[in-house]
């Protein structure tokens, strides 16, 4: 029964997106907020991440986009006076905060209680020792282990248990700082790091069970003690690879009923003993050749796995968990999918779900690709099929990394010895390596012995290899094509293997009537009729999706393309945009259809669009949906690059693109066409030339005048742009990029050292609306997604500001923009130059929507539907500035990606962002740094090392840090410059010099900050790289841009003990 004493609930979100804590918590949190509001609860929301849907004013009653710190939470509780906190739906960050406040007694003294799972339960599950004792009490096996608080103890325990051992720091995200140690040195290294990262300086040293099957159960318990399993999942990669980086299948495939039920019963016994009320995840290691198992860990909250389980089954775990927290029992909660049955049942799947991780190695080319217990994936994709092979093929092509089959990475030129070596390596390309081994006739047993992957999965990979061979060698016929489609070979892949054109394969499919059919995810294997149109495609089956309107009153259908997996450069922002656009189209009377493949997002929740198709975002997969739904139009401007890329294909299918036309998008991207537009509209951009050789480049540079910006005409991983100040720089740079690729034009532009600005605008074809102008703290050369962004801008001259407005308007009109456009500028005095124009929604839209209170996406959607800006009650042009400064701060996950170069440049590297909002600029900046986890000062020691051209500029900044009480260390050159500038500074030896040198200082753990301004370009292995890596891995804040360092100084100078909290939901009233 509902507990009516709960009236006002505080929900804590998970903060910026980092590896191990991504969009899944926005999904869970949003679902939970809606579930609470449905029950008439007043919801207060705290989350520092402005890109989330949960921080919308229509999701919660009071929204605070503030740093997730104890100080903020305490002030918020005093201000809002909630009666309860629901801590288990916002990920580990929120849970840790709530726990800290519970432990300090603050909650008790303010009459706030934790609802859902209790603090004691959380401790029993998360505290290693208590967990072990609890498991022992109920005879649930755990691997032999011991908790340690020091490196010495850890080494002793490791020797007792015997190497290899697994090291797991307590209370960290995504296994941060953990790992497997094979020997004493590795053990020491991981222990030092793990102890530091753990909130309670605690690491578990455990027997290594690598190679066992890894199986997870998602379970739910209510306050009456009713328990259910939502789903179990089997990792294809055995224990040793973080489940977030594993290929995972649901339900388990190689477990018999005896094993399935043994672990299920265990999971239910565990949540019963822990007293969980809500959702919980239990991870097991199951011995592959006996019934022996052990519990790896229990997460007493919703998690990445629970989001996956929800999407895999249709069972809304977060929604149910929120209802349970309010006191409802499972048999009182309706099953929203069937509309008939109740939440007290277990979903039955009549399909297979395959999840694959999206790893960031395309952005971090220097990073180690190996996978272990530290999660590295930024996102994931999910595929649904009625056979495993098909599921795997769909998942592969959903990854958005130019792969579409087991042929996408070619290892055929390796000799057997090297292939063997690769098979032993656990990395992101392992299944492709296995495919190559199978092509060469390796036996299942051999591959299994090396990889420990179950032979059942190896056989499935072999089925795909067999089909490749058949397509290559047999002549095409109906049976063969049917079979190839059944296991999800795309027409394109079939064409490549058979030598036919893709269009010919499509014709054959027409002739033989081989069409995709859509089946429903209904939670119950068709036992009950379901109401929710959540579909996946299969071949060779009856189609259940008729394409008919769900609501016969509606007359028009719109297709909204999602943005695929979360990856660097394409984050949760685009899901925010897709969801808002969908909601607005619904209001405009359209039936809405979403296609997406990311299980972590709100957009793939089954009740966002009228119909959800969980499918890869490729032209063929989209066409399957289009053939059935025949939408009246498609919107691509909200789904980032993934969606934009599909625009051409959609036009060919005869689906009108709503809003800005594809030809105009192309015009903005094509340098020549865009130059013509600039000319025509009288907008200037930095003068530039396109060249091919070093000689031509130098000639161009001298003509333009140094400094110049040199960059390849298209982005090559890692080799980005470089600022050249002399001919030598150009020679060096062109030498570097020619190592990677030749014969591509190189662009040489006049480098304008100014302020970077950004505008998101809406255009109806006649008028434009500019919600606000944002200014970047970092100067040109750093990707806009990695820059600190300030709204409203503060350094433009009146002339320049007017130019920004004029240029935006001229370009939007010239490009015939209907809907969103994003323009980036450089301002230098009164001069304004265009950097680029993207006629689509951008990453800053959620942030600027929230701080200006202007519902940008809904407005743009209305305009796409034919309304005008004036009609919607807005005066065109730049809108009145908000009464607040809002600063968007990028957040990075560098410590998790071993080997990644952390220096900032033109390639985006941040995984997420947070917001600092306040009436004063300085407080906003302070909050933004706080939100990004930079909580200083601690030890008041710092290192500065800069290149020669920055030496003059660094002196005044160093002075400010000195004034803040910092002891400054520097290597010879910088030290000299600082001393000459009057800064007291200690010299340290360089890396290659004898110890103690700068590396010892970094590893000594008493540094707050390293300011290291590297030369542009890749420089893995060089001194700076080593220093930065080591610093980041030991938790030191590393700044690689002068402007960031300046901003941090400002922030620290203005550190105030009082912090003001801003309710975003009430901004309208103040603006």
């Amino acid at each position, binding site marked *: 029964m509902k507990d009516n004493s709960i009236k006002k609930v505080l929900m804590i979100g998970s903060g910026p997106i980092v590896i191990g804590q991504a969009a899944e918590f926005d999904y869970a949190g949003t679902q939970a907020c809606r579930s609470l509001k449905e029950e008439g609860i007043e919801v207060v929301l705290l989350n520092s991440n402005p890109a989330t849907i949960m921080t919308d004013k229509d999701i919660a009653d009071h929204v605070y986009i503030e740093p997730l710190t104890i100080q903020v939470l305490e002030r918020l509780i005093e201000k809002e006076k909630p009666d309860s906190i629901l801590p288990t739906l916002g990920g580990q960050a929120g849970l840790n905060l709530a726990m800290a406040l519970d432990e300090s007694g603050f909650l008790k003294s303010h009459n706030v209680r934790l609802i859902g799972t209790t603090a004691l339960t959380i401790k029993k599950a998360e505290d290693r020792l208590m967990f072990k004792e609890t498991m022992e009490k109920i005879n649930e096996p755990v691997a032999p282990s011991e908790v340690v608080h020091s490196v010495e103890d850890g080494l002793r325990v490791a020797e007792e248990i015997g190497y290899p051992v697994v090291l797991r720091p307590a209370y960290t995200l995504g296994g941060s700082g953990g790992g497997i140690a094979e020997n004493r040195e590795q053990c020491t290294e991981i222990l030092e790091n793990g102890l530091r990262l753990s909130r309670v300086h605690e690491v578990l040293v455990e027997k290594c069970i690598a190679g066992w099957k890894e199986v997870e159960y998602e379970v739910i318990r209510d306050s009456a003690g009713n*328990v259910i399993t939502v789903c179990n999942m089997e990792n294809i990669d055995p224990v040793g690879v973080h489940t977030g980086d594993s290929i995972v299948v649901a339900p388990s495939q190689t477990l018999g009923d005896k094993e399935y039920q043994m672990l299920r019963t265990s999971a239910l016994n565990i949540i019963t003993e822990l007293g969980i009320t809500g959702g919980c995840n239990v991870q097991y290691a199951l011995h592959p*050749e006996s019934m022996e198992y052990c519990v790896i860990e229990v997460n007493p909250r919703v998690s990445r796995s629970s989001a996956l389980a929800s999407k895999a089954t249709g069972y809304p775990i977060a929604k149910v968990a929120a209802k349970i927290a309010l006191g409802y029992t499972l048999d009182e909660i309706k099953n929203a999918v069937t509309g008939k049955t109740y939440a007290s049942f*277990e979903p039955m799947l009549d399909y297979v779900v395959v999840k694959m991780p999206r790893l960031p190695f395309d952005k971090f080319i220097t990073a180690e690709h190996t996978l272990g217990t530290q999660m590295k994936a930024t996102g994931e994709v999910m595929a649904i099929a009625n056979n495993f092979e098909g599921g795997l093929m769909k998942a592969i092509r959903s990854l958005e990394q130019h792969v579409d089959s087991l042929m996408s990475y070619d290892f055929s030129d390796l000799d057997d010895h090297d292939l063997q070596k690769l098979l032993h390596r656990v990395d992101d390309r392992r299944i492709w390596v296995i495919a190559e081994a199978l092509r060469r006739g390796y036996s299942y047993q051999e591959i299994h012995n090396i990889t420990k992957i179950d032979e*059942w999965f190896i056989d499935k990979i072999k089925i795909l290899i067999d089909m490749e061979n058949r397509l290559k060698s047999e002549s095409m016929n109906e049976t063969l094509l049917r079979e190839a489609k059944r296991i999800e070979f795309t027409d394109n892949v079939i064409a490549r293997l058979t030598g036919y054109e893709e269009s010919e394969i499509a014709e054959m499919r027409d002739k033989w009537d081989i069409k995709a059919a859509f089946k429903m995810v209904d939670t119950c*294997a068709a*036992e009950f009729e379901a109401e929710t149109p959540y579909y996946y495609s299969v071949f060779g089956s009856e189609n259940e999706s008729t394409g008919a309107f769900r609501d016969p009153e509606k007359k028009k259908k719109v297709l909204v393309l999602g943005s695929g997996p979360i990856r660097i450069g394409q984050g949760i922002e685009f899901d925010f945009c897709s969801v808002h656009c969908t909601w607005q189209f619904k209001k405009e009377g359209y039936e809405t259809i979403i296609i997406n493949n990311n299980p972590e997002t709100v957009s793939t929740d089954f009740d966002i669009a009228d119909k959800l198709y969980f499918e890869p975002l490729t032209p063929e997969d989209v066409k399957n949906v289009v053939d059935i739904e025949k939408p009246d139009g498609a919107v691509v401007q909200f789904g980032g690059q993934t969606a934009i890329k599909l625009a051409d294909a959609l036009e060919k299918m005869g689906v009108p693109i709503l809003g800005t036309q594809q030809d105009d998008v192309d015009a903005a991207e094509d340098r020549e066409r865009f130059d013509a537009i600039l000319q025509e509209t009288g907008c200037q951009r930095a003068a530039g030339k396109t060249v091919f050789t070093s000689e031509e480049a130098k000639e161009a540079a001298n003509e333009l005048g140094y400094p110049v910006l040199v960059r390849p005409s298209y982005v090559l991983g890692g080799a980005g742009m470089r600022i050249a100040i002399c001919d030598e720089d150009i020679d060096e740079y062109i030498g570097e990029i020619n190592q990677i690729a030749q014969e591509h034009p190189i662009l040489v532009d006049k480098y304008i050292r100014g302020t970077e600005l950004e505008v998101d605008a809406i255009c109806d074809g006649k008028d434009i609306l500019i919600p606000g102008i944002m200014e970047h703290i970092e100067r040109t050369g750093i990707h806009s997604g990695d820059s600190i962004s300030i709204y409203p801008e503060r350094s433009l001259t009146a002339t320049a500001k007017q130019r920004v407005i004029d240029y935006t308007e001229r370009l939007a009109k010239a490009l015939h923009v209907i809907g969103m456009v994003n323009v980036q500028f450089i301002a230098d005095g009164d001069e304004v130059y265009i950097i680029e124009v993207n006629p689509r929604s951008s990453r800053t839209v959620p942030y600027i929507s929230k701080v200006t209170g202007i519902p940008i996406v809904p407005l743009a959607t209305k305009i796409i539907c034919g309304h005008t800006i004036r009609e919607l009650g807005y005066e065109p042009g730049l809108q009145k500035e908000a009464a607040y400064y809002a600063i968007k701060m990028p957040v990075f996950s560098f410590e998790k990606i071993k080997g990644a170069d952390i220096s900032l440049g033109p390639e985006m590297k941040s995984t997420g962002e947070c917001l600092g909002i306040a009436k004063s600029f300085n407080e906003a900046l302070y909050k933004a740094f706080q939100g990004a986890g930079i909580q200083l000062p601690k030890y008041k020691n710092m290192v500065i090392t800069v290149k020669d051209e920055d030496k003059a500029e660094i002196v005044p900044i160093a002075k400010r840090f000195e004034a803040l009480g910092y002891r400054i260390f520097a290597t010879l050159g910088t030290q000299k410059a600082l001393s000459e500038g009057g800064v007291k500074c200690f010299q340290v030896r360089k890396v290659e010099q004898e110890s103690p040198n700068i590396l010892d200082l970094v590893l000594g753990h008493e540094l707050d900050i390293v300011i290291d301004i590297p030369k542009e370009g890749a420089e893995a292995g060089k001194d700076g790289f080593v220093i930065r890596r080591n610093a980041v891995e030991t938790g030191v804040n590393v700044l690689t841009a002068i402007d960031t360092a300046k901003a941090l100084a400002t922030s620290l100078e203005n550190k105030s003990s009082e912090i003001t909290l801003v309710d975003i939901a009430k901004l309208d009233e103040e603006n």
Partner: protein
Amino acid sequence: MDAFLILEDGTVFKGTSIGAVKEVISEVVFNTSMTGYLEVLTDPSYAGQATVMTYPLIGNYGICYDDMESERPWLDAFIVRELSRIPSNFRSENTIQNFLKKNDIPGIAGIDTRALTKILRDKGTMNGMVTTKRYKGSELSSILEKIKAYSVTGVVAKTTTKSVYVAQAQNPDGSRYTGDKEPKRVAFIDVGAKRNIIRSLQRQGCDVTVYPADTTAETILSQNPDGIMISNGPGDPKENVSIIKEIKKLYDSEVPIFAICLGHQLMALATGADTFKLKYGHRGGNHPVKDLSNGRVYITSQNHGYAVDPKSLDPKVCEEAFVNVNDGTNEGLKYVGKNIVTVQYHPEACPGPKDSAYLFERFMKMMEA
């Protein structure tokens, strides 16, 4: 080889023949369990039925003979989406392909099992034929007549034990009983029993004497058992007229009784209640059942096509003790003034959740009292 499933409504599914090549007419039912296909194959309650597995991948972990719920498979035909090309499990001793062949069970693979399930859900359980022969025109019409005429009969006699035997008490881990207490003596009426019911009693420390279905009440009572267990079994409960009469006599005795599935229906019929055929039955491992004595909901393993009609219950004789949360059907009865509890579902699991195993403990307490 092509195989066909012809439903009595004329729907034909074309797939690939699996198992034995032979033609059978049977009642087509679906099971939603994602694991436990061997337990389903060998559950005597499927005698007279052809079973569709809604989970598409079957045979993944091969055949582990220890998991068989009786000495052989009883169903008439097995209908699946896909049989795994290889089995992979350390316990596997055979492939499902061989197992079906060896046991002369025909089947069909490669059909749209979800489409079939939807037909059975919407139109109700119906008869069908599995064949490798292609019927057309008038031939098909006469076959359809034959299919319609089929009914499941005589299946209890077919599946029950042919002779009395004793299964001795065991420790919970399956070893020979070493407990302090004298083992309870349970008379077990096998009307098509699954092994794990007997095993569950053994592991509670009971010596179980298993009787054929046609054993008289007098014979059973003459042995002075501490308790009586009536098993699960196949078919229409009302068909078992003489067994029902004997069960009424057992009801009249003071011996504690626990009955499962068919046993539960037979006790209800013996004491004046009625049963009816469900539209498409409950077969799977995810059915929520509420224990009305404490309000708790348990996820249960189920396999039944008939149910006791709660409207037919005489409140002086019995009351509902368990109900299905999904459709409100009766899932168990408590008999007024009697030491008798009966349930419609399967606390012995196999396949399915073991959450209701506590009912065996409850039966032990009933025998203590």
